[in-house]
C-alpha cells in the first residue's frame, strides 16, 4: 500500500512539473559565465553556451518545427529563506528552417533581428552568441557598492511551451526532454 502511494505521488508530481516548468534539452548548458560593468548601472552578462541539440529537436527543426531558446540572468541576494532576485534580464531567440532558400533563420525575439545561416551549426552558434549577451540596465547602486552581498545566476532553456503540443506530449512522455532548469551561479564580487 505504501509503495502504491509513493508511485501515485511520483506520477502526480511528474505531471505537475511537466505542466508548470519549461523543459530544457539535455545538451543545452552554460559552460562559463562572466559579468562586466559597462557603467555605473549597466551590467553586461556574458555566457559561454553549449548549444548541441538532441536528435529529436534536430529532426523537429528539419521538419519545420520552430524552436525557441531562452537565456535568463539575474542578480540575487541571499535571504534567510532562499534567494531574492534583485534584477533580471531575459533574451529569447527563435530558430527555424527557411525552406525557400534552405537556410536556418535565427530571430531575436527581443529586437526582431533576423539572421540567415546556411548550416545548423552556424545557426546554433549565432543563437549562442545572441543569447550569451545579456545587458542589464538600471542595476541598483547597492549592487555596485556591495557586490559581495550579491550573486549572479543564469540559465539556458528550451521554451517547452513553444513546441507543438503533440511534440510536447511525445517528447515528454518518451523522456527525450528533461525538466532540468538548473541555475549557473557565480559571485558578483
Amino acid at each position, binding site marked *: 500500500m505504501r509503495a502504491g502511494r509513493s508511485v*501515485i505521488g511520483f506520477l502526480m508530481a511528474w505531471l505537475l512539473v511537466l505542466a508548470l516548468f519549461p523543459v530544457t534539452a539535455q545538451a543545452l548548458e552554460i559552460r562559463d559565465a562572466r559579468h562586466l560593468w559597462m557603467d555605473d548601472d549597466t551590467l553586461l552578462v556574458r555566457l559561454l553556451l553549449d548549444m548541441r541539440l538532441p536528435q529529436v529537436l534536430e529532426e523537429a527543426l528539419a521538419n519545420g518545427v520552430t524552436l525557441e531558446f531562452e537565456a535568463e540572468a539575474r542578480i540575487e541576494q541571499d535571504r534567510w529563506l532562499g534567494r531574492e532576485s534583485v534584477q533580471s534580464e531575459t533574451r529569447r531567440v527563435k530558430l527555424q528552417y527557411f525552406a*525557400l532558400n534552405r537556410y536556418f533563420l535565427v530571430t531575436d525575439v527581443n529586437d526582431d533581428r533576423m539572421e540567415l545561416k546556411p548550416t545548423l551549426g552556424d545557426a546554433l552558434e549565432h543563437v549562442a552568441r545572441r543569447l550569451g549577451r545579456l545587458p542589464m540596465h538600471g542595476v541598483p547602486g547597492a549592487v555596485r557598492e556591495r557586490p559581495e552581498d550579491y550573486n549572479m545566476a543564469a540559465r539556458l532553456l528550451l521554451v517547452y511551451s513553444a513546441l507543438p503540443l503533440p511534440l510536447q506530449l511525445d517528447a515528454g512522455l518518451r523522456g527525450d526532454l528533461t525538466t532540468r532548469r538548473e541555475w549557473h551561479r557565480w559571485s558578483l564580487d
Partner: protein
Amino acid sequence: MISVSLRRFPWGLLGMGLLFLLLLTSLVVMGGAAQDQARFEQLFLWLLVFHAAILLVLGGLIIHQFVRMVAQYRKGVPGSRLTLRLVGGFMLVAVLPVSVVYYFSFEFLNEGVDSWFDVRVDSALEDALELSRSSLDLRVRQLATETQEMMSELEGVSEGLVPLALNDYRRQVEAQELTLVGSNNRIIASSTDSPIRRLPSPPGADILMRVRPEQPYSRLEPQPDGSLVIRVVATTSSRRPGAENRILQGIYPVDPRMSALSQRVEDAFAGYREFAYLRGPIIQGFIFTLSLALAISLMAALWAGLLVARRMVRPISDLVQGTRSVAAGDYSTRLAVQRADELGFLVQSFNAMTRTLNEARDEAERNRRLLDAERAYLESVLQHLRSGVLALDGSLRLRTANEAAGQILECELQGARTRPISELGVECPLVGQFFEAISDALVRQEDEWSRQVVVFTRSGRKVLMTRAVWLPTSGSSRGLHAIVFDDMTEFLKAQRDAAWGEVARRLAHEIKNPLTPIQLSAERLSRRLGKVLDGADRDVLDRATGTIIQQVEAMKTLVNAFRDYAQAPRLELGSVDLNQLIQDVCELYVDSDGHSRVQTDLEPELPGIRGDAGRLRQLLHNLIKNALEAGKEQDGFTVHIATAYLDDPAGPHIELRVTDTGPGIKPDLLERIFEPYTTDKPRGTGLGLAVAQKIVEEHGGMIECHNAPAGEGGAVFRIRIPVEHTPQALAHEERE
C-alpha cells in the same frame, strides 16, 4: 445493540457527485478551448494534469475500496461476498462496452489520421515550393547580373560622382538600397528609397567571405514584416594597381504578390512537414487522451459501482449482522429503516420479529425465574426435611435426592443425579439393600404404596418406613417415582420399649401386687386348715394351696420376665469372645454321661465383639432352650451352633447360626415369631425369642428366622452382630 440505528452521511455519494461535476466542468472547458487552438494548447496540459489527478484519485479510491472489500471478504464480514459479486458484475458491465469503444476508437484514430496525409498533397507542396524557389532564383540571378554590371560600371566613376550614380542605378533597377563599400567595410556611398526609415547596412562578415570578383553573392531574405528581399553583393578585380577594392551591395524588394505567394507556399510547406512529422505524436496524443478519458470513465463507473453496491448491500449486511446477533441471543437488535422499498419492509419485519422475540424471551425469563424460585424453595424444603426424599425416573435413574436421603442411606446422592440406581447400589450397599427391597414395587410402577424396609448397615439395623408415589408421564414431563422414607429404627424401638415398659408396670401393678396376698392367703389357709383337716381333705387342701402357691410363683416369674424384657437393659459392655461364650453355655447342656444334643462348629480366630457377656449368654440360652423344647420328644434331635466371620458390603460382622433338626416353625407363626406371647408350646411364656431379638438389637445386630428346606433340618436362626462398636453400645456405655 447493533450500532446501525444512526443514518450515515453519504460521503461517498457526495464525493462522487463532486467528482462528476468537476469532470463535467473540465469537459465544458475543454470543449470551449478546442475552438481556439492557442487557448487549447494553453489549457491542454492543465486539463491533462487535472484528468490525470482525477484518474489517480479515482484509482486510489478504487484500490482502497477493493483492498477494504477483500479484507472484509476474508474476514467474513456480512455482505462482503454479495458486494464483491455486485462489483464484479458492475466491472463486467463497464469494461466490456468501454473496451469495444476503445478498440474501435483506436483503429479509427490510426486509420483516420493516416488518411489526412496524401502523397499527392505532399508532392504538390514540394512542387509549389520548388516553383517558388525557381521563380525567385530567376529573379535573384537577374539581379545578381545587374548588380555585377553596375559594379563594373562604377569602376570608372569617380568617387565624387558615385552617390549620384548609385541613385540613378537604384531608380533604374528599383532597388531598396544600393551601397558601395570600401576597405574595412567603409561605406563609400549609399542610396536608399527611404533614407529616413532605413540606414545603410553593410554586408556581414559571412557574406563578405563568400564574395568573389565577378561572382556576386545573392540570397533571398525574409523580413520581420513578412516580406522578402533579395540581397546581392558584387565586387570586381581592381583595374588600377593599389586601388581600393570596392563592394556593391544591393537590396531588392520582391514583388509583394510574389513575396506573399512564396511566403504562403513556404508556410504551407513548413506546416505540412511539421504536421507530417508530428503524425505519430498526434496519434499518440489522441490515444493517450482517449485512454485517459476512457480510464476516467471506467474508474468512475467502477467507483460508482462500488458505492452503489455497498449502498445496496448495506441493508442486507445489516440484516445479516442483526440475524447473527439474534442467533447469539441479542434480541434487542434494531435496524434503522433507511429505505422505503422491499428491503426497508424486510428491515421493518426484522425489527418486529426481534421485538416479539425480545418480549417472548423476557416472558420466558420471568417464568424461568419463577420456576427457579419455586425449585429453590422446594429444594430448601426438601433439604430441611428429616425424611429422605428420592425421585427416580421411569428407567430408575436418580433425578432428585435430598440431604436426609443421603444421610439415611449413608451415600453421597447429591452429586449422583442421572445415574442409574443400580450403579449407586454397588457403591453404597445400603442403597442396594434399600432398592432391592422396593424394586418390585418400582418395576411394577404401583401408583401408591408404603412398606417398612429393614436394612443392615455397619452401624446396625435400620427400619425405614417408606412411602412412594408413581407420577406417570404428563405432557413433556416423564414418569417419576417420588419416594419418601424415614428412619424409624429409634422411634420403633422407643415406642416398643415404652409399650412393654407400660405392660411391665401394669403387670407389676395389677398382677404382681395381688400375687403376694394370694400366696400369703394360700399359705395361711394351708397352715390354718392343715391343722384341722386330715386325711383326704388335708391332701386336697395341700394340693390346692400348693397349686395356688406354685401358680403364683409362676406368675411372679412371668411378671419378672416381662419386667426384664420391658425394662431398658443395663449392658455391661466388654470384649467378648463369642466362641468361648458358646462353649461355656454348651457345657451346661452336657448329660451326666457326657453326651450333648448341642453341637458346635466354630470358626477359629473369630474376632472379639464388644458386648454384654451376660446378656449374650442369655441369648444363647434362650435360643438353645427354644430349640431343645421344640425337639425334646424327637429322637436324635440336635441343635447345631456355628459361627463365621463375614466382611461383606454391610460391614464386618460375626454371623451366629443356630439350627436344629426339629420340625421347624409353623408358617403362621414365622412372621411374628419374635413378638411377645408368640409360642406354640403349651408351657412357654412366648418371651424367649422376643428377649433374644431384644438382646441382638441391643448389640446393634439383626436376627432372622426361617425354616430349612424340607429334609435338611428344622428352624434356622441367623444372627449378625457387628464387630465394631455400635452406636447403641456406645450410647449405653455413656449412660452407664
